[in-house]
């Protein structure tokens, strides 16, 4: 068992080939069947809402679609998120991808498109794409749409209203200086100001992403995502701003090894249990915190949200937001009914139900009013008012580049890398990809 790594990596290689053999054999029947018989089509659907209300709701949605489309069966697999990612990796390796699955967009999607695994749905879903508007951009490659986002959120600060009150902070910080002043007040009141799960790297990296968003003009960022050229000095500025934040020591003790969201001493756990006053995280945070507290309520009413503060002297739009989301994609060999199913998932009806159950932040504008949670509704407003939502850089650039970038940013948090290192190492990784 312990010969591990080598053997495991190798055995995995073996599994890939074996699966590949099975995959091609199994895939043909569902794809061919509807063409010849016109009846009995089966769609496989993988999603990650494996707890209620999401699980039950999706089962209901699938039933409704089956009823409206006689002869079509939807085979639903509700998987735990990490499980789903692992299984999807294996599915991509084997080529036996479920008909409808989740895509996070950016470089990851571009890789899947390049490997010819995803269906171009620009034409059959044109009407839905125009309804969704700008949020589809993250799932387009070379002008073609490959997936329809059903939930897009933005990253911001989640905070504990009681602790803010205790420290005498009346309004949420609007500028970086306000934020650091607030954290000094919190420290003085005996509260750790901000938790960050730098052990997992990406939560720390989000700070740099946001500071780049504040430092760089929109055009520079959008060009960089395409050209992978980081020569604009604003990227170094972002790192310098980050150094200032780290030097001000607003973070929880031991943040370098703090995990993002596993266990009560993780960054989310510390916020959920009232040990820190705030944490910068995505829209999923309330759900994560509920799972980390014994009463399954998280911070409840005490939870507030404010957007990432503006930075003095930055060339970026202070309203620009960092975010990302999940989209339904259709695999290359899926039957046409799968595309219809995805369109149905983005319909007013399904998206409204999705929003009412607080399952995420709906992308269909008609469902925006259905979000009940006040913190999420505020976040939704910031998302809709922002001039553009920048997809998380690591997702946008793909993990080969994004992973290196996150590593360097985490090193800067540890005081082991300079702002220049982040840009230089990321550029090297990007050049290797070209």
């Amino acid at each position, binding site marked *: *068992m*312990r*010969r*591990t*790594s*080598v*053997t495991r*990596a*190798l*055995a*995995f*290689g*073996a599994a890939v*080939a074996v699966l590949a053999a099975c995959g091609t054999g199994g895939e043909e029947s569902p794809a061919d069947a509807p063409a010849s018989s016109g009846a009995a089509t089966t769609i496989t659907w993988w999603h990650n809402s494996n707890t209620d209300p999401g699980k039950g709701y999706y089962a209901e949605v699938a039933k409704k679609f089956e009823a409206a489309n006689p002869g079509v069966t939807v085979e639903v697999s509700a998987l735990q998120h990490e499980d789903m990612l692992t299984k999807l*990796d294996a599915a*991509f*390796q084997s*080529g036996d991808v479920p008909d409808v699955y989740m895509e996070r967009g950016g470089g990851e999607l571009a*890789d*899947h498109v*390049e*490997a*010819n*695994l995803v269906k171009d749905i620009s034409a059959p879903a044109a009407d839905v794409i125009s309804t969704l508007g700008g949020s589809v951009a993250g799932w387009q490659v070379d002008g073609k749409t490959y997936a329809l986002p059903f939930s897009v959120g933005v990253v911001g600060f989640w905070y504990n209203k009681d602790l803010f009150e205790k420290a005498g902070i009346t309004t949420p910080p609007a500028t970086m200086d306000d934020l650091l002043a607030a954290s000094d007040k919190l420290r003085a009141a005996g509260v750790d100001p901000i938790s960050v799960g*730098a*052990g*997992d*790297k990406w939560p720390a990296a989000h700070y740099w992403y946001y500071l780049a968003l504040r430092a760089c003009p929109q055009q520079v960022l959008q060009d960089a995502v395409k050209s992978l050229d980081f020569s604009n000095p604003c990227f170094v500025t972002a790192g310098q701003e980050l150094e200032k934040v780290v030097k001000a020591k607003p973070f*929880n*003790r*031991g*943040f*370098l*090894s*703090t995990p993002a969201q596993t*266990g009560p*001493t993780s960054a989310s756990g510390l916020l959920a249990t009232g*040990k820190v006053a705030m944490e910068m995280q995505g829209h999923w945070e309330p759900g994560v915190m509920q799972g980390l507290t014994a009463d399954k309520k998280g911070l409840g009413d005490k939870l507030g949200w404010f957007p990432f503060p503006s930075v003095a002297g930055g060339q970026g739009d202070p309203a620009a937001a960092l975010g990302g989301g999940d989209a339904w994609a259709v695999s290359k060999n899926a039957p046409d009914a799968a595309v219809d199913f995805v369109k149905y998932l983005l319909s007013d009806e399904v998206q409204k139900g999705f929003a009412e159950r607080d399952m995420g932040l709906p992308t269909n504008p008609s469902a925006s009013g259905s979000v009940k949670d006040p913190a999420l509704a505020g976040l939704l407003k910031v998302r809709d008012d922002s001039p553009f939502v920048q997809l998380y850089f690591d997702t946008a650039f*793909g*993990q*080969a580049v994004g*992973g*290196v970038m996150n*590593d360097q940013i*985490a*090193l800067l948090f*540890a005081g*082991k890398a300079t702002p220049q290192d982040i840009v230089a190492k990321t550029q090297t990784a990007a050049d*290797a990809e070209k």
Partner: protein
Amino acid sequence: MTSVVRRSDAAPHTGTGVSNGAADRAPARSAARRNASARSGSGLRTALEVLFFVGPALALFVVFVVWPVARAVQFSFYRWKGFGPLEDFVGLRNYVTVLQDDVFVAAFTHNMVIIVLSILVQLPLGLAIALLLNRKIRGQGVLRTVIFVPYVLSEVIAGVVWFQLLQPQYGVIEGILGVVGIPGPEQGWLGTPDIALFTVFGVLTWKYLGLAVLLFLAGLQGVPDELIEAAQMDGASWWQVQRRITVPLLGPTVRTWAFLSMIGSIQLFDMVWILTGGGPANATTTMATYLINEGTKRYNYGIATAASVILFAVALVFALLYQFLVLRRDVAEADASARRGVR
């Protein structure tokens, strides 16, 4: 340090394997002579018999070991994301990338540090505890069990427990030290780059000391009582007996343990992955965490397999060198005694 149960019984096996082979040869030869005089067809039958019995194991070995190794070597020559066709042949470039990567070089260094620390710390400690537990004392069985329990625990469970114990601010260890008045490091035991590797090593020692003690205790049972009694008759003190008789006779066991510990250290993965994930600031990366990170996190499967091939080569070279330079003596002795036994 880290090691395999399977390996621990495989290593002594080579010793007995050699002696058995020598012992079995004689009857086999006479049987062969008998067969030759009988019918020529029985040679084929023997071959078929061998094939029948060895075949399944051989097939499994080829499918799950040889073929995957070959595939990994093949992958390591391509730039490959883990899906899609293998077509971007890059020759040895992945190897160059890995060997020039500071993170990999640091990871290799960490593996070496763990090897050296294991020998320097766990060997004397394990030996001392084994010698103590070999004396007739009350509660001997209980003490032996206590020492060995960590080794029986699943590595993942032990890792998660230690991770929680070592938490900064809220962890039990910091709580205890706080009572005594010693403040924990600012970033915590696992979060301070300069300390993290040693913290991990401390946990590894806790986990694997039991194996060393168990092996040494087993070795001590092989030290003949007559020798010790004779020495005592001659007026040797307990210390002298240990130094001049017990420890030298324990040599082969110690050398086997060191081999297991070394291979385990080179392949170190699980404990590091759970405690630190290679962080903070890459202070605890090992070759194995490097390759997992490149493969399953960044989808650089070409680079990951190149790193795995390098890891394999390093482990192989270390194993062969150790066999050749250190263990050969033990094997040669076992072989010689076995041969003496046949005659």
